[in-house]
């Protein structure tokens, strides 16, 4: 059950997306997030999602791998949708029955929230699926390195991320083993109310923490005994190179943002469609 988590898992394949410089991919992700947030028109959102599908196809990662990232949100998404649907009261009223009121603004907002979350999570998971943790953190370190002038610990941050990513599978595996050891002693993790269950987790959490602290200490010792002393003067085995491919990728992404801005400032497709549908609710109301 712990194995469901795909975020942070690398999917090995040989594709243009895999070969992009990790810095480029990080910048692309940031630009993509900007695009997701400036979209104000549901129909323009199709463009962003289309771009996402296009990137997925280019990356040769099976679509269901990318979509798996949504699975942990399968409760959150419907909840967000319903909350927005019922709480937001702007625009025309579509349904008004006792205490339930649904408005065009509510429908739009609800759709938006869900689409945005899906777009963000799948975008981020595409990045981790196509980039090894090592090159990802290296990219991050290089992107942040100009900030070293103001004493920002870019190298340390990247190293911390590398280590954290490296140990996620180890931790999951260990949690699994501990769970088995306690189940074998008759631990009951499934019944009782929420407080009982939280308390029942203690026999699993305590060994997990104790072992993690011990491992952290051992890792620190092992690193120091191999003369690790931070980022200063450290050289790279593989030097990152920014190529034409990277330039093209960024230009395409810039074009997407431009298209979004231009489309929604010149056309009001949502308004038009709402206008078309208006007779539906004005008559019934």
């Amino acid at each position: 059950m712990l194995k469901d988590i795909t975020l942070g898992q690398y999917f090995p394949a040989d594709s243009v997306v895999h070969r992009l410089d990790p810095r480029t991919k990080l910048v692309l992700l940031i630009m993509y997030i900007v695009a997701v947030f400036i979209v104000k028109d549901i129909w323009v959102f199709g463009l962003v999602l289309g771009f996402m599908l296009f990137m997925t196809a280019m990356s040769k990662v099976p679509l269901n791998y990318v979509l798996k990232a949504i699975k942990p949100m399968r409760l959150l998404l419907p909840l967000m949708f319903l909350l927005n649907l019922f709480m937001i009261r702007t625009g025309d009223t579509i349904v008004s029955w006792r205490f339930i009121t649904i408005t065009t603004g509510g429908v739009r907002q609800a759709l938006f929230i869900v689409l945005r979350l899906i777009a963000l999570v799948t975008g981020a998971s595409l990045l981790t699926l196509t980039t090894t943790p090592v090159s990802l953190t290296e990219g991050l370190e290089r992107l942040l390195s100009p900030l070293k002038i103001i004493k920002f610990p870019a190298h340390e941050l990247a190293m911390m991320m590398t280590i954290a990513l490296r140990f996620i599978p180890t931790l999951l595996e260990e949690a699994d083993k501990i769970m088995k050891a306690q189940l074998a002693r008759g631990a009951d993790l499934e019944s009782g109310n929420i407080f009982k269950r939280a308390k029942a987790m203690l026999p699993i959490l305590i060994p997990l923490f104790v072992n993690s602290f011990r491992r952290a200490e051992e890792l620190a010792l092992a690193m120091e005994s191999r003369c690790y002393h931070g980022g200063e003067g450290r050289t790279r085995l593989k030097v990152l190179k920014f190529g034409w491919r990277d330039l093209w990728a960024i230009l395409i992404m810039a074009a997407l943002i431009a298209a979004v801005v231009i489309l929604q400032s010149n056309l009001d497709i949502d308004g038009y469609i709402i206008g078309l549908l208006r007779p539906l609710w004005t008559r019934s109301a």
Partner: protein
Amino acid sequence: MPIVIEKLTYTYQSGSVNAFTALKDIDLTIKDGEFVGLIGHTGSGKSTLIQQLNGLMQPTSGRVIVDGYDMSDKKQRAKGRSLVGMVFQYPDYQLFDETVYKDISFGPRNMKLDNDEIDRRVREAMRLVGLDFDEFAEKSPFELSGGEKRRTALAGIIAMYPKYLVLDEPMAGLDPAGRRAVLEMIDGFRSQLGCAVVMVSHSMDDIARSAEKVVVLRDGRIFTCGTPQEIFSLADELYEMGLEPPFAARMASDLRRRGLLLPHGIYTNEALAAALAEYKGGRGNA
């Protein structure tokens, strides 16, 4: 009633690209009170097999029946599981409570025993594993040495009075005195509690000393199964698998090659010593 394993097959991550069949077509019976040694090369599926015994893993196909309880049924599993005590290789996965006493009583408490019974069992378990009650009961399990942690972990299982005690490499990482102590402890519970023991070990000498039945796994299948005498006479096959017969068996076969007429089927140091003494006696008389 025994533990019966029928046609068991287990596949890790079945259905995915990484699917790996770790156990194939296993048929095995563990009788009451029996001492079964489980050996096999690294990755042969030993740990996977013993985790099927108390339903921590569900077979991909086949069945595991513990004393008549079918372990694939959720309700029966809980009953079957309470009969099988499982000791994992690393005590660090198990110890969690504030004191050794509380940690050992975790299992019995989950069994909903009354306090007097729990107290009695904890004391008994500590005595059996050789932990002095006054010295250790109130200590934190995290400030113990490796060997003491292992004893505490063992005591935590023993206090549940399992009918089957399953141990995954219980002696890994212990010094010779520690190994001997653990083996003696296991023999001790066996005679006192009358439980059956299934022990995974890479040390043939330890298996030779205690086991009544030896099961050899190879690439997820049962390669052979029999008395230690039968198994350890298959020296060549064991070598080929990356295993090694016990020291006494190797020595006896070397001596035979040198022309000493020792009987076959020697696999413990005691038997070898006896055979050599007899040999010397025989030659002296001649």
